[in-house]
């Protein structure tokens, strides 16, 4: 037997083996599209290898036109295989990224809402669903002012400080304090950190809001500076120490001007606050 015939026979049996393994392992790995393409490729290769073997016996002349046609199909199928693999890679990559960002959002303790330029909610995290008692379908697509404030127009029409428009205009993050209504119909105080989400052209397309419930951390009905004014009005010599974690409305200068003896920003350790109290009482 000539060496060429040996190669052709090896190729024929290798292709039969590949096709058999593929058919037997049909349920394993890879996507269905890839398997169909590989089946096609191996079938065509099997035909070509068989034709090469038959060439030595001199009975393949009738197969020549078909062989010419199949030979052109083979690189096309190879291309399709690589293309399908690439698409699978892209889809799988996208799935992994989606899963990563979903996990990231859901692992945050704050309620997270993503809002577009039409004030429609486009995404939320699980924490928000737990807080609101709603399901995803009830939230996505809703207007933020309708869902969070039960209002038919943007908060600014009701005299509330809404930072959404500011973030869309400036592209810079900012924070504000809002009244929200919880699932039991009770009023909550929340700190909202609003940050822009920009597209490739650096335009703000969405705003992401991180909402933290501070109802149990904030004084109802009255702010700290109003309380101080009232206390000093009633008893001007009372020493007042203002301890706050939220400093957008008041700073040390304003505090001193109001008659506050000491202004402390959180977090603070016991020893420091003890020293400040001692100093104020002297």
């Amino acid at each position, binding site marked *: 037997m000539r060496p060429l015939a040996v190669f052709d026979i090896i190729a024929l049996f*290798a*292709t039969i083996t*590949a096709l058999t*393994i*593929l058919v037997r392992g049909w349920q394993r*790995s890879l996507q269905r599209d890839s398997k169909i393409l590989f089946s096609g490729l191996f079938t065509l290769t099997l035909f070509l290898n068989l034709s090469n073997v038959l060439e030595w016996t001199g009975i393949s002349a009738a197969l020549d036109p078909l062989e010419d046609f199949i*030979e052109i199909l*083979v690189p096309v199928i190879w*291309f399709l295989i690589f293309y399908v693999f690439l698409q699978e*890679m892209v889809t799988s990559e996208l799935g992994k990224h989606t899963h990563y960002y979903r996990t990231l959002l859901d692992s945050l303790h704050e309620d997270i809402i993503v809002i577009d330029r039409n004030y429609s909610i486009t995404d939320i995290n699980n924490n928000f669903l737990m807080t609101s008692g709603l399901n995803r379908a009830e939230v996505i697509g809703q207007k933020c002012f309708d869902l969070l404030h039960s209002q038919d127009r943007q908060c600014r029409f009701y005299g509330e400080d809404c930072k959404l428009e500011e973030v869309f205009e400036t592209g810079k993050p900012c924070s504000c304090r809002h009244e929200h209504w919880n699932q039991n119909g009770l009023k909550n105080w929340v700190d909202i950190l609003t940050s822009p989400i920009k597209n490739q052209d650096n335009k703000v397309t969405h705003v992401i809001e991180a909402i933290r419930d501070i109802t149990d951390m904030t004084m109802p009905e009255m702010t700290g500076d109003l309380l101080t004014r009232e206390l000093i009005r009633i008893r001007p010599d009372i020493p007042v120490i203002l301890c706050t974690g939220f400093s957008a409305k008041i700073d040390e200068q304003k505090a001193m001007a109001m008659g506050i003896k000491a202004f402390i920003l959180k977090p603070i350790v016991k020893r420091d606050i003890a020293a400040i109290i001692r100093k104020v009482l002297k």
Partner: protein
Amino acid sequence: LWQKSEKEQLVIQQNELIMLLLGVGVLIFIIENRQKLRRVPAAKIMISGFGMILGGWCLTVLEGFIWRDFFNFMEHMCYAASSLLMAFWCWKVFQPKKDAE
């Protein structure tokens, strides 16, 4: 397509040239997307399988010009190598896993 006079008349068939051009196109596609295609299971074996068959297509065109017998020998060797590599790739990808059984 082209003819060359030697001891025997050698002819490059049109379909062989088309096959080679298409194969080179696929090779360019692989090179362009090599980073992503690396994540295909046992990618090196599969791409080597394609490389071997592409080599066979090159040699089948070359044998129309010179050293017909040598290149024909190499061509058939490439086809055999390609088929073996693809069989090995199938075994690597579709073999039953021991812990799954």
